[in-house]
């Protein structure tokens, strides 16, 4: 019976490790490989930590299994169990080693953190060509693109654009288009409560905080439509904030903006708008592009 219990408790770490090992190949819980350079770095960190944790986990579980089995055998022997009052050396070891490991992780990830979170580290060209300003609100994402003709000469000019919209800005909702092949900066704000910009496959997550305009940098490696959700419980309609980031080659991105501009300045006559819009139909460009 004692051995049965020992094996019972040993079984669970074995189940956990087996599940952990087969889960990537079974596509359990894993969103797939990161599609952005920063995401790949984050994945590398994740896997490094996963390896450390796995080694520690297996080690401690083996030790515990050994102690359990050993204890089960020892109780067969006559006499009283040994009593100890700790071991100073052992305690120093299990404090210093994990502390060292944690310090190593803390320093090792600093670069990745800084590349993603510190604005001054972003390439100047990306900072001077913000792709969009995104305003999260209950329960949708409103997007404002600077007009493609507009060139920002300095950072204060970008800040001024964030403070005061321009008449030729282009507006969209719930579908953010970005060019592939370069690091893009979008500026995140919220019109009401906290939200979070989250594109799982790019590993990009950033809270939108009332009163702040927060830059986010990312690069989509290949053209695709990526799932974009809100990752901060923002109210009863949180689940409605499903949207799409559409990464496309530079030319397609530019022609998307051109189409958006034609649509937005449509007067129903001058052929500004699409053919349909001129005929009076009110389908938007973005809507017309929604996948079937």
């Amino acid at each position: 019976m004692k051995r049965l219990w020992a094996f019972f408790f040993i079984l669970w770490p074995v189940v956990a490790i087996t599940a952990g090992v087969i889960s990537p190949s079974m596509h359990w819980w894993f969103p797939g490989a990161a599609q952005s350079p920063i995401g790949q770095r984050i994945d590398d960190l994740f896997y490094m930590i996963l390896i450390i944790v796995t080694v520690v986990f297996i080690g401690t579980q083996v030790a515990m299994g050994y102690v359990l089995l050993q204890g089960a055998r020892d109780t067969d022997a006559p006499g009283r169990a040994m009593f100890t009052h700790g071991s100073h050396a052992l305690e120093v070891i299990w404090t210093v080693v994990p502390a060292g490991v944690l310090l190593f992780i803390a320093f090792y990830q600093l670069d990745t953190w800084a590349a993603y979170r510190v604005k001054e580290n972003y390439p100047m060209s990306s900072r001077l060509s913000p792709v969009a300003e995104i305003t999260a609100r209950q329960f949708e994402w409103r997007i404002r693109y600077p007009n493609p003709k507009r060139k920002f000469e300095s950072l204060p000019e970008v800040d001024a654009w964030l403070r005061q919209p321009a008449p030729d800005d282009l507006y969209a909702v719930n579908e953010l288009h970005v060019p592939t092949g370069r690091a893009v900066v979008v500026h995140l704000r919220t019109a009401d409560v906290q939200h979070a910009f989250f594109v799982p496959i790019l590993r990009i997550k950033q809270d939108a905080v009332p009163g702040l305009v927060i830059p986010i940098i990312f690069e989509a490696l290949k053209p695709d439509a990526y799932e974009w959700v809100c990752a901060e419980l923002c109210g009863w309609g949180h689940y409605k904030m499903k949207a799409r980031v559409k990464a496309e080659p530079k030319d397609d991105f530019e022609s998307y903006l051109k189409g958006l501009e034609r649509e937005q300045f449509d007067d129903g006559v001058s052929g500004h708008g699409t053919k349909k819009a001129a005929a009076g139909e009110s389908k938007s460009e973005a809507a017309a592009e929604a996948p079937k």
Partner: protein
Amino acid sequence: MRLAVRSLFASRFVAVPGTGVGLLAALVATLTIAGCSQSPEPKFVFGESTGKLYRPAQKAVEMELVKDFGEPNHIVVWEKLPVDFGAFDGVVEQSAANFSDPVKVKLTRKANSKVPMSADDLRGAGIIWTSGANADATAWDPKGREVPLDYEVAHYDPKESTLSVSVWPAIAGEKGKLDPPKVGDKFTVLGPMLQQGHKLYMTHCEHCHGVSGDGKGPTASYFDIKPRDYRLGRFKFTSTKSTDRATRDDLVRTVRQGIPGTYMPSFLLFTDEEIGPIVEYVRWLAMRGEFEERSGAEFLSGQFGSEDVSQRVKGGETRESIETALDNYIKSEYPGVADDLAGRINTSWTASEQPDALVTPKIARTPDTPESRERGRKLFHSDTAKCAQCHGPAGKGDGPQTEDYQVILGTNKKRSVPGLFDDWGNPIKPRDLTSGIYRGGRRPLDLYRRIYSGIKGTPMPPFGTALKEEEIWDIVNYAMSLPYGSGSENSELRQSKIASASPVGGG
């Protein structure tokens, strides 16, 4: 070791009253069973207009509504309405042993419908057998009368393309006598478009707009800007002339783009196959509401409101004579009136889908020059357009009318509180034109249409006849310049701090 474990339990856990643990277990068990069961059957509620009627009249309207529209899960295909109910032709490909067994079928879309073939929720859609033993089956109702059987889809599996049939209302004792579907039996599935629309509506729209489209869903109570109550058949942001209804495209645009500045979010990720049925269902709800509203008005004009009746009784009429008259009216005239109402509803919705209902400018937008804006500004303040009366001298939406006591529509009484109201009785504010938020869309065409046709159901009147096209374009140019003027930087949103470095966050 086992002893130790037992004594641990004895000292810690069993000391806690055992009934508590038992209760908890019972609660969990109950929740597991009850929590996962079907939610209650949705039901249409009847409107305030029906509630005002004398009881027998109320019942007549309610019965008429159930007869012509059915219930959310038993939609009646009323051909008089200009709605694409959708229809599938079906053929049974495999005989069944029992009537209610799932059978393999092949469905094809009827040519005149846009119902997506991917429609997967057909539960409750009516079935008419056009051949086979079920084609002219009848049953006996509780009073012993022979009635035709109402078949409906009990379950449909689009992957296996199997379908099972039931009869509605299920007639006790009849099931055994029903003939199982046989190979080659032909049938028509009625109303799959609305059935699909209903399913999506209940998931995405109902919690604000309500089961009946009355704008009284559970989440609506949190809002200061109320969700649209469809039942007047009126939608604010349309592309049509002031007397016309919303087009399907208008509703599609509203669902896709949302309405900025309100709680209506964008549903851009809906596919065409989802949005078509939703819009059709919303139109149908609007027509149902309109039909109810107008039916009520007919009875009220015949002095059959519950207040009218008590007045008439006070005036010396006997209750019996009123009831006889009402009974006569319901039996002899109301069926005709109901048909007539449906015809009128059909005419107006159908006309709104025609190209000449659309507001399309004949001349292009005047170039956006300072001169044009200046002409627009003068018109804005003029007595012809009177924009500043509501929108305020600087376009901030704070004109003198917003402080005035307004006359209640259709009466000569004034409201007890100042300010503007819409046709639904909700207080509303004229748009702050400096905010840069345009609920009906920000294209020049949208602004033109807002001025040309007004905003339906609100005090914003149509100017299509009072103003020349050039004048409307001048006002559009002026209005579109307002968000970029000097007064516009005060908006709270714009005062946000530009973060120097990103704060920690996520999750």
